[in-house]
């Protein structure tokens, strides 16, 4: 593996459009659910162990070389809220463009050809990780880091939180991030034998509910 490739893939400056999304944070701030550093941490921890785990499982499975189209279907069955499916596909399309330019490979071409509207982002992430010579665990790490990094950055902008404190929140989550990435990667190691049902399907009701509510807002700062 190349440690540098992982840094590039997980870098918030990787041009995959993630900066426009708050991962549910904008809705959580609007409802008062997130209002300070402690509630930011609770949000990130909850998102990590639900949507983050599920995304990491899909990304890790894709990085093993498992059928990416089957994983894209599995992502659909794990994403009941249509607003969140649209977001995942839009992000997937954007990441696809960046990844194909960065690590061109047949796997990305194949996935792009069969999902012209954009595959779910974690699946693209996993295929890109594989193209970059990364492992399933690397892909899971990139996915879990993104699942909390985006919302934390958004909270800084939405609440004018101290960016040092927001970064400290991410640092405090490091053990959880490692554990969730390892669990996702373990599940991905079984997918070839046991099929996609072995992958995590952890879900958070509020993320689904507020994801739909947020998509209906007339004016919003973030796309999700």
């Amino acid at each position, binding site marked *: 593996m190349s440690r540098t490739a992982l840094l590039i893939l997980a870098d918030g400056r990787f041009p995959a459009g993630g900066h426009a999304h708050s991962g549910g944070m904008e809705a959580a701030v609007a409802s008062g659910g997130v209002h300070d550093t402690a509630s930011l941490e609770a949000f990130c921890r909850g998102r990590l162990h639900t949507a983050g785990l599920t995304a990491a499982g899909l990304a890790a499975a894709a990085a093993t070389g498992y059928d990416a189209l089957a994983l894209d279907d599995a992502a659909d*069955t794990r994403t009941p809220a249509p607003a969140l499916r649209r977001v995942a596909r839009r992000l997937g399309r954007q990441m696809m463009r960046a990844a194909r330019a960065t690590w061109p490979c047949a796997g990305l071409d194949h996935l792009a050809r069969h999902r012209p509207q954009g595959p779910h982002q974690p699946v693209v992430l996993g295929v890109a990780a594989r193209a970059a010579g990364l492992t399933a665990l690397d892909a899971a790490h990139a996915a879990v880091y993104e699942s909390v990094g985006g919302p934390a950055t958004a909270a800084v902008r939405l609440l004018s939180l101290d960016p040092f404190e927001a970064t400290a929140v991410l640092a405090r989550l490091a053990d959880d991030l490692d554990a969730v990435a390892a669990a996702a990667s373990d599940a991905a190691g079984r997918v070839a034998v046991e099929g996609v049902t072995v992958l995590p*399907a952890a879900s958070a009701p509020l993320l689904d509910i507020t994801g739909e509510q947020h998509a209906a807002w007339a004016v919003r700062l973030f796309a999700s």
Partner: protein
Amino acid sequence: MRDAAPPPALHPVVPHADGPAHPAGVRAAARLRATHNGRATTVPLLHSDGPFHLRRLRPRGERARVCVLGAMSAPLGGDRLALDITAEARTRLEVTTAAATIALRGPTADPATYDVRLTAGEDASLRWLPQPLISTRGSTVHQTYRVELAGSSRLLLREEQLLGRTAEPPGRLSTRLTVRRDGRPILDQHTVYGAPTPAWDGPAVLGGHRATGQLLLVGPGLEAPPEPVLLGDPAGGHCVLVPLADGPALLATAVAPTPARLRRLLDEALARVPGAET
């Protein structure tokens, strides 16, 4: 009553990763099967077991109805419970429970398993409308729902959970719901609430609400409302009704401060489904 030797399971119980159940636990597999005799739906198989006492209710129109009565306190720690419900081709079946299911710790802190299988054949209509499951302090329950639907069948499933009784933290409640239609997965979802699950009541998951639930509708002719249905507000409880990716299927998801408020939201969501059977 709980001392009675557990009868052998009539069908394989889904294995769980938690190892063997505590010997004190009850092992029970209740089954019921509805069939169409050419004129009406009948329920020729009604196999009560352990805590599940199955009783026929008076049919409502052409719909056969069965009620699950709690014959003993369950699930308790270490219990392995399974309920297998089949609505064969062309039947109309509704299954309810007489009272809330209360998960208690029991004599051991071992997890209890509660596996519900729902199967609907061609042109069948199956409704599973139990009372809420209440997770009480110290209990651990791993619940699975495995739903298998023929392409022309219809399903109405309601599932409600109350996390802790008044002023009580809940136990741990894990629920895996998998729904397949014509053999194809259409919904796969896993929720876990209660300590030590990280941030389960935080602003990304339940937002401090104690009641959560879902309503799933599947079947041909089901029309999605033109826009996603958004009900309620963050303080009083809220709910969305949305189409799944691989329809025709609609899912309402709600969180609320009380079970009564939760039920109102789910009822309201159901009322917003055009042409939903009532």
